[in-house]
């Protein structure tokens, strides 16, 4: 049985180097490029007809738009409207990345902490800049809970700063861990089907893990949606904090 971790190996497809830096075009980068192409293709192609009564593809695009527009409105308010393109990009990139990983043999780029952390860090730094640009130094009042005694500041401020800095960590670990664990479990159960199914008796022992595998695959599709959703909504909540400061 192949190692369940084998599916996460990064393979350089086009070896490139920038000085001493390895910038090879890898299978991970390829999947990201495909994800962007799929998103762009779906959005551009589906709304081309501009039907008043949307067809199937057009309603997928409209549903996605309304879902994220609603999420931004609920969580950030009207000021969040101008950040909609950013939030929508994040959501569609993560969602399509998760779903592409469900194709047999495909590489899941969201199962790499390097990818999710870079994504989370971009969001985090961007949101911090937005907050500072809107509120100036007043932004740092975020690090001191409203109404707490001044004497508690030496303890509370470091805690709040660490709590703030831990946001990109928890954001990225949550997505990466869910995707990695899900795909490992799928691979292990698929291995069970093969090993149990080839036992001398009959193929019967393999049926049980196969049934489990079907259920797990469905669950994994659900997780793909859910994690993209959680990633996006937490970004919205952080954006709200930066814009409204509590």
């Amino acid at each position, binding site marked *: 049985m192949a190692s369940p971790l084998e599916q996460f190996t990064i393979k350089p497809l086009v070896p490139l180097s920038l000085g001493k830096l390895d910038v090879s075009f890898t299978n991970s980068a390829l999947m990201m490029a495909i994800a962007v192409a799929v998103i762009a293709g779906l959005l551009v192609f589906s709304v081309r007809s501009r039907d008043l009564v949307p067809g199937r593809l057009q309603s997928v695009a409209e549903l996605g738009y309304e879902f994220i527009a609603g999420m931004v409105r609920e969580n950030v308010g009207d000021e969040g409207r101008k950040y909609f393109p950013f939030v929508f990009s994040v959501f569609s990139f993560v969602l399509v990345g998760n779903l592409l990983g469900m194709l047999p043999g495909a590489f899941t780029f969201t199962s790499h902490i390097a990818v999710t952390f870079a994504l989370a860090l971009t969001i985090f730094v961007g949101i911090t800049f937005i907050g500072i640009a809107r509120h100036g130094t007043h932004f740092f009042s975020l690090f001191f809970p409203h109404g707490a005694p001044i004497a508690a500041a030496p303890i509370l401020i470091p805690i709040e700063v*660490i709590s703030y800095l*831990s946001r990109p960590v928890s954001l990225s670990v949550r997505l990466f861990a869910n995707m990695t664990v899900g795909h490992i479990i799928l691979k292990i159960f698929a291995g069970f089907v093969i090993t149990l199914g080839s036992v001398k008796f009959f193929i019967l022992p393999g049926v049980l893990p196969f049934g489990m595998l079907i259920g797990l695959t469905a669950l994994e599709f659900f997780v793909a949606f*859910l994690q993209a959703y*959680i990633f996006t909504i937490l970004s919205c909540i952080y954006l709200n904090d930066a814009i409204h400061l509590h």
Partner: protein
Amino acid sequence: MAETDPAKPSDGPERDDFQARLAAARERRDGGRDTASAAAARNTGQLGLGFRVAVDLLAGVAVGTGMGLALDRWLGTSPWFLLVFLALGFAAGMMNMLRTVRAADAARRRIAGERGKRE
């Protein structure tokens, strides 16, 4: 075993779940504010919430440890900053957890309240 006995009443949790979804669908139809965080509380369930909370704690401790190690290496004061920031990181992780749980709790209560109003 696929079909269940029609005479048997459906289980409590399933019923609750259906009621929650129905309330959410009505809310959406009426153009009300179906808060996304409420939807999150509805969707993730206990296991999902547990995992989120665990990651929250872990992230706080990890960032605290990282900052402590970096400061120690920079100032050559090992292990003092590590010890201090480990404790602070733990506190920050606890704070993260508390916030996540509070938000989920508030969302859940909001759903329950909305359901109560309608019935």
